[in-house]
């Protein structure tokens, strides 16, 4: 956690020197995103849903778990340790894929979650999906492990991470493993 925050701080200070191996590729895809509505991996930045807006909404039925290393419909699934939002997997999307008709946020917040299956800690990017229609009966999860207020923007999960997209409406949130912590 601390090392992640150090690195995040370096970015906040503008002092980071690390040139990422896939920067060019990522930027290229970001351009594609704007025109095609497909989207690429999020970034050092952060989160989303404000508070429980599920008031009065029914919870989703269980979904078949196939190929995942846990029940991705349950808020205690290991990747969701800092996820604050509706699960895209119940809004027409998948664990790491936004629903058709929406686009992935170009910025995202990051959590550091412990995977009980292999004992490792992972950096998980929580991208919001932007635009599109509403969900029908999504599970709302509200994890805040390692969460910090907006002064550590990349760890902040109260904010709409569609903020840097042209399409700014919040839809749901995906959880994407972007590295080992």
């Amino acid at each position, binding site marked *: 956690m601390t090392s992640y925050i150090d690195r995040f701080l370096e970015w906040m200070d503008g002092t980071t020197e690390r040139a*990422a191996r*896939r920067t060019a590729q990522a930027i290229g895809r970001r351009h594609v995103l704007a025109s095609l509505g497909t989207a*690429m991996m999020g970034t050092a*930045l952060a989160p989303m849903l404000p508070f429980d807006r599920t008031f009065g909404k029914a919870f989703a039925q269980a979904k078949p778990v196939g190929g995942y290393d846990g029940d991705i419909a349950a808020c205690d699934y290991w990747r969701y340790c800092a996820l604050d939002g509706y699960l895209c997997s119940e809004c027409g999307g998948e664990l790491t894929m936004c629903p058709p008709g929406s686009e992935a946020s170009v910025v995202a917040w990051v959590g550091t979650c412990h995977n009980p299956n292999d004992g490792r800690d992972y950096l998980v990017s929580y991208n919001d999906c932007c635009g599109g229609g509403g969900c029908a009966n999504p599970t709302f999860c509200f994890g805040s492990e390692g969460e910090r207020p907006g002064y550590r923007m990349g760890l902040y999960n109260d904010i709409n991470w569609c903020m840097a997209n042209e399409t700014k409406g919040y839809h749901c949130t995906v959880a994407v493993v972007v590295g080992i912590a």
Partner: protein
Amino acid sequence: MKKLLAVLLSTTCAFAAVPAFAQDADIPPVAEETVGVKPAIDPGPNIFAMDQSWDGLSTFQVFSAEDFTYKGGMGTGMVAQGQVSADGTTAYTTSTYLERITWGEPDMVLQIFDVATLSVTAEIMLPPKITMVAAYEHLLQLSADERFIFIMNATPAASVTVVDLEAGAVTMEVPTPGCWEIYPATSGLKFTMLCGDGAAKTFILNETGTEIVSELATDLFNVDDDPLFVHAERRGDADELLFVSYTGNVYRVSDAGDAPELIEIVSLTADVEAPFAPGGYALTAYNAANDYLFVVMHADPYDGSHKDAGDEVWVMDMAVGTLLYRLQPEHGLVSLYVDDAELPTLYGFNEEDYTIRSYAIDPAATHGIIMEETGTVSVGGGLVITVRE
């Protein structure tokens, strides 16, 4: 902004580049992933249901008709109506966007969606007259050949906006004073409406949808004593519409000619002693393979109960015009949809817990059961249910 994002992106990638220090060396670590957008919904038959909002986003929801999975939603404006092409690939919504949500300039638009990608492919600005009303199937209707779409207006004066979908443009506004809802004919640019003086009226337009060629009314019903519900069914491919009245009569109306024609009135309740009446929203459904009309019915009706959820679903055999079955679903329903199979699947919307429920209908009661609940799904709204293969 672009520069900033480049830095951000590089920072994330930097994280990913940090070498792993595995806790459990026997298990390979989870591979790095990339966020994406699911390019299209999964194939298979779909249930469409409108989740209307009056102060924000309405969603035309899409569920799998096989396992009730939520496939996603088409986001649209306030107080939306929805419609789907016969082949299920294209959806249409009309809705209102106000500049400041509850006030300000109204943008009233027809939006066309590609169902596979749940994406808007075109938007056509409409005269700002479209009716803002609960979801009803016949407020937004395609012409038989799906080249035109008809949109119900109320200012409160009633009229119909005609849009040429090929040209992507409004062709005309048909004044329809005192008439309501749109029942397109099986061919041509022609539709029938119900009117406040108890008539049904057929409007025929020229083939470019720019002129009224004919408008002829026929006395049909008594608005005081036996008003008709505006949700109606076409009897299969026939030039025949089936309306149900507040007191439980089924009106068979031919729209084959230039004017509507009453074929016959048959009673649902004639042979039933206890008082029952139809009620709900999309309260009827027609199954072509068996020539059955399903109607939501409630016991002990009173003046004003005509939108109450029904305790029973009655089945009229239209071939002989008699009540065949009285089915008792476990949950009260206000809207129905049925497919055209010989062993039909019936869908119902339960307003109490906001669910759509499916029922296997076995007319022969092969296993001793005519109606069996087979599934349920929570929805945002389901006053109109549409299913497409």
